[in-house]
């Protein structure tokens, strides 16, 4: 299936535009340096990047839950056509859970240990909707069944410690979906789980996406997971989306040297037999936010860098189906070879 262009798809559900987040009181120390992302209704956008590139800060920004030490200093977040009031806690409360749901990495600690599963899920519904507890409990049992938990009526009366990690993550997903949000942010939803359970959880998320038509913002560093589940991918590096493309294009023809580096560092089964090069690491480290320099943040680690990379931060430009921030993007032919 060829990816549709922006105009064909209509308005994006979530539009992050030139988002800038910096350390409170020291605005030159930027954690997000003009991040732009778009998610359309019903699609899965994967955000990948190494630790510390701002993936989680992005999701917290969308929820209006930036830590005290950080502040948004620029940019805009538009959700379903209106600007998200990220600074207004009371207004955001109506968005959280109801319109945007969130699933975290740690299913073990994401549930309250002293409250029964059913009551925990019911709390979410009762917080946002004006219905009776009995009606909420009925919905809870339906939800637990929907996320594939066996014997949901009995499970609703259990405490979290009686459940396995995978089952708890299903409960967390049920909670996130309790009020039928339009967008689900999944921040490393399977990292803490067994590989077999990971696959089950991802399949569940995709199934729910199909049934409910929700958009999923999948934050991960697992490229295998991205290849299997995402419709589009945004690669983040040092607080920016350096490349954004549909999954097939990105994996077959990466345009940014960083994306190419990431793919070369990912093992593929049977890769060596097919003549693939041994895994190549990207030299160096992500520059600290304290290191201020005018050029491209990837320049010190980049094999394609030139003089212009050192002096000018590359702007974002669109090439075919890809949006890339690089002075010397890898040509399609080169990438395919």
């Amino acid at each position, binding site marked *: 299936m060829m990816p549709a262009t922006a105009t064909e798809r209509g308005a994006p559900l979530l539009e992050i535009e030139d988002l800038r987040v910096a350390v409170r009181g020291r605005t030159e120390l930027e954690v997000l340096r003009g991040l732009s992302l778009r998610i359309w209704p019903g699609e899965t956008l994967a955000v990948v990047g190494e630790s510390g590139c701002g993936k989680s800060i992005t999701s917290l920004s969308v*929820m209006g*839950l930036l830590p005290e030490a950080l502040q948004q200093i620029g940019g805009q977040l538009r959700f379903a056509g209106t600007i998200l009031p990220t600074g207004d806690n009371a207004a*955001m*409360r*109506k*968005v*959280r*859970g*109801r319109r945007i*749901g*969130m699933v*975290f990495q*740690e299913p073990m*600690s*994401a*549930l*309250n*240990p*002293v*409250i029964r599963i059913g009551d925990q899920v019911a*709390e*979410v519904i009762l*917080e*946002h909707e004006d219905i009776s507890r009995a009606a909420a409990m009925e919905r809870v049992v339906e939800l637990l069944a929907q996320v594939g938990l066996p014997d949901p009526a009995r499970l609703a009366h259990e405490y979290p410690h009686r459940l396995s990690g995978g089952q708890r993550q299903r409960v*967390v997903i049920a*909670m*996130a979906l*309790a009020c039928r949000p339009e967008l689900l942010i999944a921040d490393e939803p399977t990292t803490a789980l067994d590989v077999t359970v990971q696959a089950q959880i991802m399949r569940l998320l995709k199934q729910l996406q199909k049934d409910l038509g929700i958009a999923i913002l999948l934050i991960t560093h697992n490229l295998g997971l991205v290849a299997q589940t995402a419709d589009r991918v945004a690669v983040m590096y040092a607080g920016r989306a350096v490349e954004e493309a549909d999954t097939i294009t990105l994996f077959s023809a990466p345009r940014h040297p960083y994306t190419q580096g990431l793919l070369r560092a990912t093992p593929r089964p049977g890769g060596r037999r097919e003549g693939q090069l041994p895994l190549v690491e990207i030299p160096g480290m992500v520059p600290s936010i304290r290191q201020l320099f005018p050029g491209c943040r990837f320049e010190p680690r980049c094999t394609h860098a030139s003089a212009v990379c050192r002096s000018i931060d590359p702007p974002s430009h669109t090439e075919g189906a890809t949006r890339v921030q690089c002075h010397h993007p890898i040509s399609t032919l080169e990438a395919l070879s």
Partner: protein
Amino acid sequence: MNKIASSIAPLLRNWTLCIGVVLLVIIFGMAISASWVFPHDPYDMVGPPLSWPGAYEGMWLGTDSLGRDIAAGIFHGARVSLLVGFVSAAVAVVVGAIVGALAGYYGGVVDTVLMRITELFQTIPQFMLAIVLIAVLGPSIETIIVALGAVSWPTVARLVRGEFLVLRERAFVLSCVVMGMSDMRIIFAQILPNALSVISVMSTILVATAILMESALSFLGFGDPNVITWGTMIGMGRDQLRDAWYIIAIPGGALLITALALNLVGEGLNDALNPWLKKREA
């Protein structure tokens, strides 16, 4: 039915809890049955003064210097002790939990202000503050409860704040925030239940302390003059300490057993509710 039995079984093996509960039940029984067993006013003179326990039929704990039945005093005094102990501890727990929860959850300025107020109360000696409050408000059961509650909430506040500082960092709190839950709901419906085990252990000790403080107040003559309490009885018997020591020893023993029972319950609850301590036994 089986489920209930299996959840009670480990509690029965917890002997500190069992003994404490049995003693408490007996004391509660005394308090409740006081009006039937001793229908007359415990201040009434019912026999010859200073008769030793067992010396007269029907006065098996003897009489004091004014011929009042000590057994009646013990039964009626149990009411006051338990009432004052439990109600003032409840006042302290409610006030302390609210202050501690808000301070621990919000941190920052809220925490600083609330904790300075708490420390203000803690720097004044508890007993002195209680006496001053009663002197100002006038001695009655209600003012004693208020005074004892007012001096014991800071301990609860500090404890609950400490619990909240740890609990608020747990992932489930963030997932509540992410679900759009209001602060009050997170504080009181989500975090507070996690602190309940610590609070319940604390409150048994608070009840015991309040009962002892009430007795001390009554002993010094700051108690409610209209009701008999164990402290009043000890206070009135101190002139006869040399020749009729039982007048002090009996209410004193009742106090000791009550405080002991409450401490045993607290200890037992701690073992039952605190999973980390279980490993110590193994």
